[in-house]
């Protein structure tokens, strides 16, 4: 699959051949740092001063690199496709190789960062349980009620959700048998066929 770069994007990246390869590598490092931690405008100013170019040019160059890296990682494009996509920018061989190395070294890391973005569904983290027997309450003395208290920990993005729930032994057995059926459903030939064929 080839990446289609917009005119704006190409313009932003046009800055790169005008500087030393070492500078391009430095920009690549900055771009990855920004993907990991977020952008920091001060760095743009420092670099612009050293190179004697307007701040915007530096900013666009780095952002263009970031976008190139994230789009390539998102679609998991192959080496060949990456080089072909970059060819359209008309850079020299050395520059193309630098960009390719940047992509190959970091694409799985970038992918894992990207995949942390769309977590708007709470996800299971862990479960703790304990068995208690209720002996009395304010309204009834002399009880013998076994109960299971469950502490469920979920994560939602970067927040964690904690729920305390209770259940009785019979419901517990029902939960276990229902969830075991859920696990078994992954092993059916239907599920296996789909998992095998959609890659």
């Amino acid at each position: 699959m080839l990446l289609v770069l917009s005119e704006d994007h190409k313009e932003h990246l046009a800055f790169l051949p005008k500087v030393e390869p070492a500078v391009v590598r430095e920009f690549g490092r900055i771009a990855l740092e920004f993907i990991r931690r977020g952008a920091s405008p001060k760095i743009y100013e420092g670099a612009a001063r050293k190179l004697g170019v307007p701040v915007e040019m530096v900013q666009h160059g780095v952002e263009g690199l970031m976008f190139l890296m994230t789009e390539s990682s998102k679609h998991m494009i192959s080496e060949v496709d990456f080089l072909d996509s970059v060819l359209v920018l008309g850079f020299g061989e050395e520059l193309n190789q630098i960009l390719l190395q940047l992509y190959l070294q970091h694409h799985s890391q970038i992918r894992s960062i990207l995949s942390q973005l769309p977590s708007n569904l709470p996800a299971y983290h862990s479960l703790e349980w304990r068995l208690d027997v209720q002996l009395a309450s304010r309204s009834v003395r002399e009880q013998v009620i076994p109960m299971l208290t469950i502490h469920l920990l979920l994560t939602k993005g970067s927040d964690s959700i904690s729920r305390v729930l209770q259940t009785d032994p019979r419901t517990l057995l029902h939960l276990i048998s229902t969830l075991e059926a859920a696990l078994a459903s992954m092993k059916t030939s239907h599920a296996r066929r789909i998992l095998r064929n959609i890659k």
Partner: protein
Amino acid sequence: MELSESVQRGLQSLADPSSFDQSSFQVLVDVSFRSLLSSKGDPAVLDQPELKQIDQILLKQCHTAATTFILEAVKQNADKSTISSCLEELTFSAERIEIFYSTHQKHKKELECLLASIGRRPAQINDVSWRLQYHMKNAQVDKVNEPFYSISLKSENEGSSEDINFTCTMEQLQDLVGKLKDAAKSVEKASQM
């Protein structure tokens, strides 16, 4: 059993044959149990023909005393001898004690359930539903191609139900089921002690 003065006085009046004859005694005992078990408060609960002759204020005092006594007996899981000796001290005849006790036995289980359901506790899980899905892609990442489960725990708390939804991978679900099975094993061991 510890009873307040007003409850004791109300019960003593109930025991007195000159205030409550045999039939009105039986009716008041039945009505007292019934008013505790019905889900809605019925203002006409004391409008029984057998009770019309009795002074209405006295009637209300006796009804309150009787219901308080019933609740206290169920709460403490009082046995026959405790109830009998308590009522004997309050001048109940052996016959009236018997009538009261047999009605008590008839309704005891239901009242126990009612009392046990009063009180705060964490949400109770009563069911779970699940879906197996295949995550292909999303807005940020293409070619994800991973199966995952969507689990929904149905829970209930004081009448209102709540769904707790979450996703998990197969390994996480295996971990979850493993822990639940450990819990079930410990319940089984405890029940054999």
